[in-house]
């Protein structure tokens, strides 16, 4: 089968896309944002909560394609348990990797670099980026609200 397609739809991605982790809306959360891709209609809701150690607990809901869902699912597994500052750093690295450079060259986990497969499909980059950008929005907007 097609090489590029196989890179895009690697088993990890398909698996996360079809059986996403940390899916759902928690009863209580500290930060929230809604992400929307007007081009395809994909929707993502992001919920962030911080425990007493200020470690992130993050979940999401979405109506979205495999790429977007998998990206969100992978994201939650990566961001869970780290601090907000670290999370934003990681998000920025991923967004830069998706839009400008490549994820491969970044100090990222193996499962994240798999998202590089999307590079061959320019119209799908925003699918992969949407959950990350939405989480960033949730985190940053809550700060401006506090100010």
């Amino acid at each position, binding site marked *: 089968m*097609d090489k590029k397609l196989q890179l895009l*739809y690697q088993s990890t991605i398909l698996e996360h896309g079809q059986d996403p982790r940390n899916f759902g809306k928690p009863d209580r959360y500290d930060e929230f944002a809604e992400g929307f891709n007007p*081009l*395809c*209609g*994909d929707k993502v809701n992001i919920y962030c909560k911080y425990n007493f150690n200020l470690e992130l607990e993050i979940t999401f809901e979405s109506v979205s*394609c*495999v790429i977007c869902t998998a990206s969100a699912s992978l994201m939650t597994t990566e961001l869970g348990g780290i601090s907000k500052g670290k999370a934003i750093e990681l998000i920025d690295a991923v967004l830069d990797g998706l839009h400008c450079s490549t994820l491969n060259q970044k100090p990222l986990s193996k499962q994240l670099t798999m998202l590089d497969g999307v590079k061959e499909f320019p119209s*799908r980059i925003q*699918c992969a980026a949407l959950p990350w950008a939405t989480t960033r929005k949730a985190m940053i907007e809550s700060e401006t609200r506090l100010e």
Partner: protein
Amino acid sequence: MNKAFNLENIRKDFPILDQEINGSPLAYFDNAASTQKPKAVIDAIKNYYEQDHSNVHRGVHTLSVRATELYEESRTKIAKFINANTSNEVVFTRGTTESINVLASTLSGLIKQGDEILISTMEHHSNIVPWQELCIRTGAILKIIPINKLGELQLDSLEKLLGKKTKIISVTHISNTLGTINPIKKIIELAHLYNAYVVIDGAQAIAHTPIDVQDLDCDFYTFSGHKLYGPTGIGVLYGKENLLNKLPPYQFGGEMILKVTFENTSYNSLPYKFEAGTPNIAGSIGLAAAIDYLNSLPLNLCHQYEMEIHDYALDQLKSFSNIRLIGESHKKSPIISFIANDIHPHDVGTILNQKGVAVRTGHHCTMPLMEFFNISGTIRASFSFYNTKNEVKQLIGGLGIAFKMLS
């Protein structure tokens, strides 16, 4: 028409079709978004710029006279194509969206608070948002003509919605998502019983069915050149002469004025009143070339053939058990929308493209319709007379791969 339909020759007229995408021949099934251009259209634009270009309407020199003649000839050809009564009834716009915006903006003087505007559930955003804005501006109320599960407009509900307060009905002739052909002649008849104006969104219909605005008796008809094998950036607003005369101008500037002083300005007559500034001259000429091209074909056979391809594809699609059709109207144009269980249209679109097949995936600018069907988008294959059965087979093969990969 005694001309024969010759698929092979027709395909040669469209240079873009002869290419490979990701190693497979291109199978272009995105015709409802935009049709491809025959060589005749491309040449008309090229020749215009290489031989005759100048600004129109204002010059005594030869190039200006030629450009003006070509521009006005284009208007006349288009008027004839839709059987308008006079070419004054053909106003050039950028496309359907602008045509509807011109109407929603200039009709608002006739609308009072509490008046009602009717549109339907299956409208394109371009035939929703301008009217929402008109309602916000005027205090009019937007009412929605419902559809049934097959994606057919509910005429009986329309009859109930119609009343003394109904001022405008704006509906699509053919749905870009469902393929439904609406009974617009009947709708126009009903609306006129209540003296409501009828606007028809003909963006999809113009390429798939002959239009006779006088027979339809519609007040306004709108379409885009790029969906009729013509250039981008050009479209048409047809309006009955007496109605267009009643409306105020939309944009202001050169061409549309008669006399300007700082105290007072008077406007030009139709159609110039609605054409401020230098128009898309090459666009109009290209659109007329598209119409000439279509007229050179056995157009009714082309329309028949498109439906054959549609029916063939529909038949082939039945081999997949996970497919749900969106839009099963009894009267349809060559558009097929479907979803495949839990598989997202976007993923299918990407895989199909990897096999050379171009389909559109998503909401097709009909989000309220998506809401009605409780889906986020569809996979849409829309056909033209240049498509082939082999291309349909390519689509079916690609779907097989996609479904295997994604489920």
